[in-house]
């Protein structure tokens, strides 16, 4: 099970990747949207955890790009963001995300969402 974690904040990237690793997931990381797109095609992950406020190319745009890439239309993408106000969820779904998780991350809930998406697959 390979997960691409796209996160610009090094502390958060470090923290989340280590925690997901402990849960038994294989983790690849990217620091911005462009890198995320690259990693998606290179690593071919089973799921993407996408921070939305990213430098270079933001999460929403990156998700759209993934969705418009042939073969990637159904790649599960979970938005992972500190934008936690009403409307932000819809914005994420509209961009093509399958699910949405706010920071600070509840890891159990996130794992449930991941399992759900991958199992469904």
């Amino acid at each position, binding site marked *: 099970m390979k997960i691409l974690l796209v996160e*610009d904040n090094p*502390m*958060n990237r470090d*923290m989340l990747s280590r925690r997901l690793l402990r849960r038994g997931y294989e983790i690849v990381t990217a620091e911005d949207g462009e890198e995320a797109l690259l990693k998606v095609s290179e690593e071919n992950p089973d799921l993407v955890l996408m921070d939305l406020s990213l430098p270079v190319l933001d999460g929403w745009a990156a998700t759209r790009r993934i969705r418009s890439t042939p073969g990637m239309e159904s790649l599960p993408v979970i938005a992972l963001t500190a*934008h936690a106000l009403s409307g*932000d969820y819809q914005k994420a779904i509209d961009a093509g995300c399958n699910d949405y998780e706010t920071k*600070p991350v509840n*890891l159990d809930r996130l794992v449930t969402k991941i399992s759900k998406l991958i199992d469904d697959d």
Partner: protein
Amino acid sequence: MNILTRWSTSIQLGILVGSLVLVSSAAIGWTTYQQLNRHLVEAELRELHREAELAAARFDDLLDDLRANARLLALTPPTSGYLRAVGNDGIDPQDGTSTASAWISRLETIFRRFMQENPAYIQIRFLVREPNGLEPLRLEARDGEIVRISDSELRQKDDRYSFHDAMQVAGAGETNLSRLGLKQENGAAVVPLVPFLRAVAPVVFDDGLPPAAVVVDVAVDTFFDRVGQQNPAGRMFFVVDDAGDFVVHRDPDRRFATELGHGHRLAATDAVQATSDTFGSVDSNDKERVVGVARQQHALGLSFILSGDTDVLYPKLVEARDEVVRTSFFILIVTLVATVLMARLFAVRLRALARGAKEVAAGNYELALTDPGEDEVGELAIAMSGMASDIREKIDHLKLAEQKLGENSHLLEAFIQNAPIMIFVKDAAELRFEQFNRAAEEITGFSAADMLGKNDFDFFPEEEAQHFTEMDRRVMAGKGAVVVGDEKVTRKDGTQRILHTKKVAIRDDSGKLISLLGISEDVTDIRHAALDVAYNEQRFRSIVDTAAEGIVTIDEHGIVLTFNQAATQIFGYGEDEVVGHNVSMLMPDPDRSRHDGYLANYLASGDAKIIGVGRDVTGVRRNGTPFPMRLSIGEASMDGRPTFTGIVHDLTAEKDNERRLVMAMQDAEKANRAKSDFLATMSHELRTPLNAIIGYSEMLVEDAEKGESVEDLADDLGKIRNAGRHLLGLINDVLDLSKIEAGGVEVDVTAFSADVLMQEVVDTIRPLIEKSGNRFDVEIGEEISEIRTDPARLRQILINLLGNAAKFTRDGIVRLTVSLRSNSAKDERELLIQVSDTGIGIEKQQLERVFVAFSQADVSTSRNYGGTGLGLAITRSFCELLGGTIKVKSTPGKGSTFSVVLPVNLPQTDADPVQTTVNDNGAEPLRRSGTILVIEDDQAARDLLVGQLRAAEWRVAEASSGVEGLKLARQIRPCAIVLDVIMPELDGWAVLKILKNDPELSQIPVVLCTIVDDRKKGFALGAADYLLKPVKRQDLVATLSRYCTEPPCHLLIVEDDLPTQELFSRAAQGLGWTVRTAVDGGKALESVKQQKPDLIMLDLMMPNLDGFDVVDALQRNPEWHDIPVVVVTAKELTADDRQRLNGFVEAVVSKQERNLDELVNYVMDSVGRISRDNP
């Protein structure tokens, strides 16, 4: 007349006519007689005059004869012969024979003959001019004889009449007459008087003979006799010379008054004037006889006067008189007889008429008077007959009229009685009622039966009756009907009515007052109704005028009829400027021209385009400015003509409000949006570090459960701490920013040395900049010296900018340039600060947003460089607070330059330095304990005091009066009372006395705060302090700090500089604290270990264990972490320092910028407040 009428008409006429004739005859007779008399006298006078002229003419004839005779004698040949002979020695040379004596003899003969022929010639002389004169011959009549005077007599000198004298009479060779003289002998007049005239005829020859003359003297009496003899009987003849002396008079003694010396002279008589042709008497004594005098003057100066005799005239007169009398008498008799006869004839006819008249009087109107005459009597008879028949007809009419009158009288009575208007009649003499009709009874309540025969005073109140009577008298004094007008009348039942009365005086034909007629109408209801109408009108008017809405009425042509008060205020026109003009003047142009059309259209079709409820239209004020208004038009009919009432509501204010509301809403929406954005950003920014904190914590929990070693965990724990600190910095910055934006940050402007401040900042920041391998270049201009602004803000601006530069620059150069420049536009000096770096730079599109909160140039910047993204926003806010600007220039990859321009002469503020400095350092605001009670009656003054105290973090209670203040003081027991002196009812002095006399309240310190400068009294009454208004904020705060501060028991002063330590120690002890001291952190912690202090005053820079370490140590010990710490330091805190201290110390006080005394006071104040909040 009475006497005459006793006799019959004939006698009357006779006497009348007789008297008339008699009088007229007498008058005619008298006139005739007088006329006759005058004519007779005039005729007599004319006659006398004629005779006088005749006499004069005759006298002249005689004189002419005399002159001719004298001349004849002078030219007789013997005269010349004698002269020739004398000149030729006695022989006449002509014939040679005749001798001189012969010629004389011849001459004598001639002379003698002349004298004989003319008896009046009384002397003739022949005179020759010789040297001594020669008189060869003189003849004289003496006693009827003609005598030649002998030569011897002729030589008597005294009797000599010289040739010279003679020639003077004669004149130039002419024969002439001398004046009348009297014959004299021996120098005296001869008596009886002989008046004479002398004629002188010169004898002139051309052949050289001597001159000679013949002189003839004539006795003029003879001449006069001859002249006078012609006069008829009864005439008297007078001659008067030019001296007025009588020359001829019937009384000879009265002649020659001059010569004889008596007074009988015409000039002396009184009846004759000196002119000719006058009437009158010659002598007053002769008055009776003299009828008239004629006077003829003569060349010799003689007047010939003739007077007639009345005896001659009278008979003629008497005869004429008698004739007149006789004729008159005859006329009288004839007239009388004729008169009597005529009178008798008339009397007969008149008697007949009289009889007829008597019959008419007796009632016989069938009379036919017959008189044959066609004269006036005849006419009279016919007229009387006509009159009789007229009378008969008139009487018939009268009878009919009388009958009708009787009927009318009843009708009139009925009219008067039943007329629906009050009618009354009073007699003129005593004003008693004679008539009082039914309406009068109804109106007054009195019955006619009561009223008749009585007057007003019997019924009406004295005052009313007086008025009625007064009016009656006035009406009767004037003429015609008088409108008395409204009168109040008290009815019988006591109620009052208003009567409108008219009165008229009734007079008989002779003008005598008979009675007074009065007509009254009960107008009570009408008047009351009119009053109601007037009241309603007034009420309506006052409503319209006080209406808040403009009310305009117009007629169907659009002409303004009324324009109320509010309308004048709305439109700016006066009422009189609009009323009478077309209402279109109140409208803007398109409406103005359309208005009449609308109106006409409405009136024609009833199409209610102009009638509407609340249309919003545009009006025009007097000054031409259009304005929105709501117009409601109502239509009403006034006297059958349509009028329109417009109610105008000025919408200007509403529209303004609406606009403001919309703007406010937009602002609010904008603010709301900004807030939402901010919250969203905040949420994001907070969640990010929290994510790390929670995530690592959960990992650590997991690790701990697994029993991982502490060393492995330390790294992650550090990350959690960093994330937490970041979060704290973020929150502090956000609070700062929000405080700035809420306007809660005050600027404390003081004068200070900018260069010193700059140097300190540079020293402080240098390690941070150089840490990243940067070079720090500083250029501070030499001109930088004392400036006036807020030093704390300036410091923060510098640190922020330099910190930023340090953050984004690695191994490069950071440069600070400070200079002064003058701003010509504002005419003041400015401080120019430039911070440039050679760091990463900012993308062009980000440049504009760098000063906006949470908009770090790149989202990734915070990841790479840290920071909250608020630093520049705060910096810009500070710049603006200080009246300055901040700009940025940047080239990505090469570096950025921030330029700050600040004015250096800000006005000094009296901001509370405690507050600003405390807030500067990002610590929580301090809350002072205790409540201060402010007693002040003036709202504004109270608000000011309360505001200042609340700003200084005190709780404040306020009372607006002394009584309320006392009540509150008992309730809340304030730590101090601020008391005003001048208050109504209970003033400050009284309140102070009561407070000080109340055992429960007497301990509360009272600070008097007043404009009354009477400190002595205040302190005498027990005031703790005395502040004079206007009170400076610092003074107020400092004063109250003294009383509203409870000292803690123990204070630990940690300070390595001993003098400073000593200073604080003493100051604190002065305030009653127990003080312990420590010179470094280690000693301090030992001291705390020994006894836990109530408060610690901590220096940061100390040897061994420094302030930060002490704070950390205190926080680590659960027993100690609640000890309040006040940091007093000269160190400029870095962000890290602050983060280390934040939340663990109560306040940070900078030692900089303050002298020691200030610092001590300030620190004590802060310490005091903190101690109260941490009991």
